[in-house]
């Protein structure tokens, strides 16, 4: 079966091994050791690690489209946030009449805004199966519509990056509006329980951490399976020579659309796991800067490797936690510097530095030798020609 193929790859085995070992170790150190033991991992740290893992899943999703399809999406934060909002809406409905205003149906902010009934798009979010389905479907649908329009018109390269950025920017503006019914500026917060587990209890937090880890493992396996399949090879071919692939008879836009939608769904799942651990979702997750940051994680870790994305996400976010705690002013300098250094001096990221050459990467063959550090420059050698074929 196609899904089992990745398990035969050494890189996947190694990645899954490390991930599962880390999950087990953290669980053990959190549960088995007393709080005063120096090796004890506090629940706060567990939640923090869970947050990193959800970011890592988002990075994997970005790497799938950037590393293997050559599409630099500067709007994946939008899919992440949509998944997060779907989860947030479910958690809001679970609060029930325990909110400040005690309304059995309406969330607090709606009572505050004098709304007398739930808007239609909030219906059904009290049922977990529906909410979880929307976590996947909402970002997937947006990606489907957006991707269908963009790929059909053969908008690629820089143009695509800029309009994905415009998309997430427009969504951010929209979600900031109170009239949208998503809590406006403040977003959704004050969550209490998930599937009737108390979100504030240590056990739930550990459970969420483990669930995120498993989701990351699953997402990784799915991505690897896609990449290793024939479909994956066509998308890599699209990345390296879109016009040539099209002339070979492949409907390039269909492959692009499929991979793009899968990636958006993974990002949505990441967002849904992120929200209960952080305890809030607000429109700032839509901000273009966040989406660009995600791309940096991938670039730092090494694009087109998937495990590099995970390494990059965890490293950058760990650095962010440390920096913003110790010297908050320096963080943006460090982040900005990273952007410059990684792109100029480390085009293959940490994964390239490590020099691993796993079986699954052999397709980076003849074509990428010529332009090894730039798998995304498609067919032409000047920068504004991303849509050259479109006018043909």
């Amino acid at each position, binding site marked *: 079966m196609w899904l089992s193929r990745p398990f035969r790859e050494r890189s996947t085995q190694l990645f899954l091994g490390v991930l599962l070992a880390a999950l087990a170790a953290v669980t053990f150190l959190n549960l088995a050791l007393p709080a005063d033991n120096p090796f004890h991992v506090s629940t706060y740290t567990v939640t923090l690690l869970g947050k990193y893992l959800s970011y890592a899943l988002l990075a994997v999703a970005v790497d799938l489209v950037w590393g293997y399809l050559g599409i630099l999406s500067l709007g994946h934060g939008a899919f992440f946030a949509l998944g997060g909002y779907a989860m947030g809406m479910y958690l809001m409905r679970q609060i029930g009449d325990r909110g400040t205003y005690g309304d059995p149906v309406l969330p607090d902010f709606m009572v505050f805004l004098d709304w007398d009934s739930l808007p239609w798009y909030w219906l059904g979010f009290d049922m977990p199966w529906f909410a979880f389905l929307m976590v996947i479907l909402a970002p997937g649908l947006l990606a489907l519509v957006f991707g269908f329009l963009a790929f059909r018109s053969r908008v690629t390269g820089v143009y695509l*990056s800029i309009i994905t950025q415009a998309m997430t920017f427009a969504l951010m503006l*929209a979600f*900031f509006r109170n009239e949208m019914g998503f809590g406006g500026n403040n977003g959704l917060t004050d969550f209490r329980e998930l599937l009737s587990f108390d979100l504030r209890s240590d056990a739930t937090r550990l459970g969420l951490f483990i669930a995120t880890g498993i989701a990351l493992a699953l997402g990784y396996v799915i991505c690897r399976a896609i990449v290793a399949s024939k479909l994956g090879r066509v998308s890599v071919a699209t990345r390296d020579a879109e016009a040539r692939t099209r002339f070979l008879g492949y409907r390039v836009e269909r492959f692009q659309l499929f991979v793009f939608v899968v990636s958006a769904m993974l990002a949505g799942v990441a967002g849904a796991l992120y929200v209960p651990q952080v305890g809030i979702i607000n429109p700032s997750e839509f901000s273009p800067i966040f989406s660009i940051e995600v791309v940096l994680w991938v670039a730092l870790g090494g694009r087109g490797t998937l495990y590099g994305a995970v390494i990059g996400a965890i490293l950058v976010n760990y650095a962010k936690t440390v920096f913003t705690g110790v010297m908050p002013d320096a963080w943006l*300098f460090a982040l900005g510097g990273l952007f410059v250094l990684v*792109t100029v001096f480390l085009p293959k990221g940490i994964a390239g530095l490590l020099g691993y050459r796993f079986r699954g990467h052999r397709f980076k063959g003849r074509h990428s030798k010529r332009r090894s550090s*730039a798998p995304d420059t498609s067919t032409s050698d000047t*920068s504004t020609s991303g*849509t050259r074929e479109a*006018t043909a």
Partner: protein
Amino acid sequence: MRMIRCFVPGLLLCLLIGLVPFAQAQNDDAAGQALLEALAVSSYEAKGEAIESIITSGDERSRRWLDELLDGKLQRHKDTGRFVIVLENRGRNWPVIDALSFEEAGEMSRRDLDRIGINNALRGQLQSALAVLDLYTDDVDDRRDAARELLGSVDAAMVEPLRELIGSEDDAEVRRLLEQGLAIHRLNEGDIEAIAELEGSLNSRVRAALNSATQSDDPLVADAASAALLDIEQKLRINSGLETLYFGLSLGSVLVLAAIGLAITFGVMGVINMAHGELIMLGAYTTWGMQQLLPGQPGLSLVLAIPAGFAVAALAGIAIERGVIQFLKGRPLETLLATFGVSLILQQLVRTVISPLNRTVVSPEWMSGSLMINEGLSLTLNRLFVLGFALVVFACLMLVMRRTRLGLEVRAVTQNRAMARAMGIRATRVDIMTFALGSGVAGLAGVALSQLTNVGPNLGQNYIIDSFMVVVFGGVGNLWGTLVAGLSLGVINQVLEPWVGAVLAKIVVLVFIILFIQKRPRGLFPQKGRAAEG
């Protein structure tokens, strides 16, 4: 100014109009004290009479007294009964001047002072009285304001004196306003001919008078009034349309300024510079810095800031080109990420070195205020200047690209780098010059923007997405396209705004552009011929 309509006792004004011009200076302190003393009563009716006697006294100081009374600054010392004018009512002790001699009288504790209170009726009486007083001042603007103030509050007793005044008035505008004031009075009396005089006026009080005339018992008057009103409303619609257009063009000119530099670096050179917004910010901060260097001379510093802003941003641009972009030739997506990093660094640099808070840049006098087109339409001068500035910058840029050697070389290098080099053009030098030019123009945009908004570290960030949208919408590599795209997006935004609100208008425009790019991926004015092969 908030207009409070009031009914002014006709007799009072009649007396007043007769008296004021001939009043002799009677700056007798005892009489003045007595006049003010009459105000220090609790009954508002008695106060009204006291105000009348101040007006009719012909005392030269009465004008100032009434002004200060209206502002609540005329106060009485509790113990000594001395009247003072409070200069500033902040803190515990207030600086005051003597109300009779207008000489400084040190500070007084606010506990010792009694304010002479007025109610709305008295306020209306005071405003009308002041307006009439102002009709005799030498300053034309004051007279015009006074005449405008009188619209709608003319009554029978004032008609004759006002007629005389019209005869002696030499400013046409004041005469016209006074005639209108009289016409409103006549209209209220049921005179149908007055309507002809009021036709076409955009003043809100004229409209109010016509509105009430449509309810008149005389059907002829009512019909004529509604016809005149319809005409006025037509004019108002045109006015508001023009205003929307003006605001749209103004917004558009800002977009053009922000995007035009990008049209060169991104459009012509093909370099994605995400730090473009921060170059704009640097230009704005240069203006601010110039003002710190030359305090008290906002005009001069603004003029000097134009070359300085260009130079600062151009140098920063050269640094970015040499430091980062030259290593990333032909890798547009990496360039995007690296320059984004540069933008973060520049933002944080400004936050750390200057301040995370917004800085205000003072506008020089010749840029504040507005240009009156007619009574319903006035154009703010600073926006008009920015609009003109944008057009000038655009024209200069066109000249550089079309008529100079640099422009020729830039076009040659972008069209065929190898061939241009073979012809002896130093491509690297051209790269630097082009990038410096584009960055410098961003600096100019910053100088202009500092006149419209606050200068802060996030200034540039707000414009970067818009700028890219404008360039892509207009067609990459086409300066005319950028101009048309910027102006039209500005106008579209302003036209949508009243219907859907500011935020939604922006969203609609963004979605529109996203869809537009699907339809025409090369923008409004795609490049044709050899350039399109890029």
